């Protein structure tokens, strides 16, 4: 199945209660698949095309505030529109899942794959000291699996989870093992999983209030400290990454998503030439695998960050490696995907020399 289709099918299978979206290339197949599957007839999941991205993210806010599993998806320009909603959702501590199939920017840009929304995804997007938990799938199977994982994380932390992908993974078709359907939560289960939710006030407790507003700055500081504690816990407990051929590597590529797949091929080409090259693939972009980069930086002679951007993740890699070794960026952007050959060439020119 296609990557976009995998996201949609995983939403249904993971017991998602609602999807609110607005079509945009290259991820329109998400809603197309949902509409074709008609989950409202089987699981009772609501699928609705909103009138805009602003409407969809606010429908997500509203739906998720009741403790339901609510999701949306879009592509770069649409996500920019959603950023206001995302900071409100993060500020109100509401779990939800959002997928961004990145395309070339800035502005409307192109519709081809890009990875130029790393800053937006991991360093803000909206205002305020908030973080999204950001997962970067690199295959159709991961597109599927990460939706399930995203729900666990979203409810563990009461925090929005962003699945950050691009048109290449969304459009390509690969083998994908599906899972058994997890039933949507019953009313009773929902109350257990989301005791904070606005699902009706029993006589036994006060009102649950969902808001991101606090006029008393001392209380807002305490709230911010709580958020920071949550993000620190994510860094401690839920960093994910993959390392390939790093044990004996002299040089490593650092790349995520589509770029990591290209680097796998470049690595194969390099190994065939006798160069000891490995790959570190961050799976979570926030929390970033900082410790792993730092450890590798003690062992290898250099790193090449490969991104379909002008160089965004490289900042986190450099911070983690703390100037111990040469670290360079190689990227194509605006919707161009680098070839494995040119990535290897860049490694040889910029790092190996």
């Amino acid at each position, binding site marked *: 199945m296609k990557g976009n289709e995998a996201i949609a099918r995983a939403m249904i299978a993971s017991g998602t209660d609602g999807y609110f979206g607005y079509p945009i*290339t*290259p991820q329109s197949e998400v809603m197309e698949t949902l509409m074709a599957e008609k989950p409202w007839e089987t699981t009772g999941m609501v699928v609705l095309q909103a009138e805009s991205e602003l409407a969809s993210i606010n429908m997500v806010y509203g739906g998720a505030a009741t403790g339901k599993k609510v999701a949306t998806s879009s592509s770069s320009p649409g996500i920019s529109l959603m950023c206001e909603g995302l900071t409100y959702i993060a500020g109100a501590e509401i779990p939800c899942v959002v997928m961004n199939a990145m395309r070339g920017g800035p502005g409307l840009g*192109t*519709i*081809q794959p890009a990875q130029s929304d790393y800053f937006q995804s991991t360093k803000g997007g909206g205002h305020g000291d908030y973080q999204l938990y950001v997962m970067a799938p690199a295959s159709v199977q991961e597109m599927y699996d990460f939706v399930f994982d995203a729900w666990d994380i979203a409810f563990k932390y009461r925090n929005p989870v962003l699945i950050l992908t691009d*048109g*290449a*993974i969304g*459009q*390509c*078709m*690969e*083998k994908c093992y599906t899972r058994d359907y997890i039933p949507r939560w019953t009313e009773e289960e929902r109350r257990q999983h989301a005791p904070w939710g606005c699902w009706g006030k029993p006589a036994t407790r006060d009102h649950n209030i969902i808001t991101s507003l606090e006029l008393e700055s001392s209380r807002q500081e305490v709230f911010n400290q709580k958020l920071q504690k949550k993000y620190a816990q994510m860094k401690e407990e839920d960093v994910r990454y993959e390392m390939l051929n790093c044990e004996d590597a002299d040089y490593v590529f650092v790349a995520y998503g*589509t770029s990591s*797949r*290209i680097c*796998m*091929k470049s*690595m*194969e080409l390099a190994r065939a030439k006798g160069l000891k090259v490995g790959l570190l693939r961050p799976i979570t972009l926030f929390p970033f695998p900082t410790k792993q980069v730092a450890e590798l930086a003690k062992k290898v002679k250099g790193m090449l960050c490969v991104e379909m951007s002008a160089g965004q993740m490289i900042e986190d890699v450099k911070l983690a490696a703390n100037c111990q070794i040469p670290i360079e960026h190689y990227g194509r952007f605006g919707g161009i*995907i680098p*070839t*494995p*050959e040119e990535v290897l060439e860049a490694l040889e020119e910029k790092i190996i020399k």
Partner: protein
Amino acid sequence: MTEEIIIAGFGGQGVLSMGKILAYSGVMEDKEVCWMPSYGPEQRGGTANVTVIVSDERICSPIISKYDTAIVLNQQSLDKFEKSVKPGGLLIYDPNGITKEPTRKDINIYKIAATEKAQEMGISKVFNMVVLGGFLKLKPIVGSEFIHKGLEKSLPERHHNLIPQNEEAIELGKGLIEAVQVL
């Protein structure tokens, strides 16, 4: 075994579906596969191409620039992808509408007059299967029983009555392919 293939031609020639049937057949034989279409404005320009990778191992990049096999069905695609075939690789083309023949000396070149034959027999709809047959004759990367399963999987059920016709076209293609240059 890893086979990296590009299939390219005009929209409507069944390029994407040929790739899909090959990819599904690979899945049925429990291989790793990747099917990556061109999408967006280049697709809307009238030409279509798809990369298909079939492998026994985990597939690296879905986007590649060098191919083991290029199957090209019009002049533009021949011009574009002849140079992307790996040395020693395979180029298959349909001579229909080709004015500039391939020139490389370091690859295997075969032609298959599928357009002409399909028109003659009134089976234009399965033209792409004729081409697929030609390819499978040279590189039987998936077994024919799995091609059958792949057809079942990729064709909607209401078209399953057409599977025998598709399989006949594949067989026809196996006999139709001819060598132009063999290393």
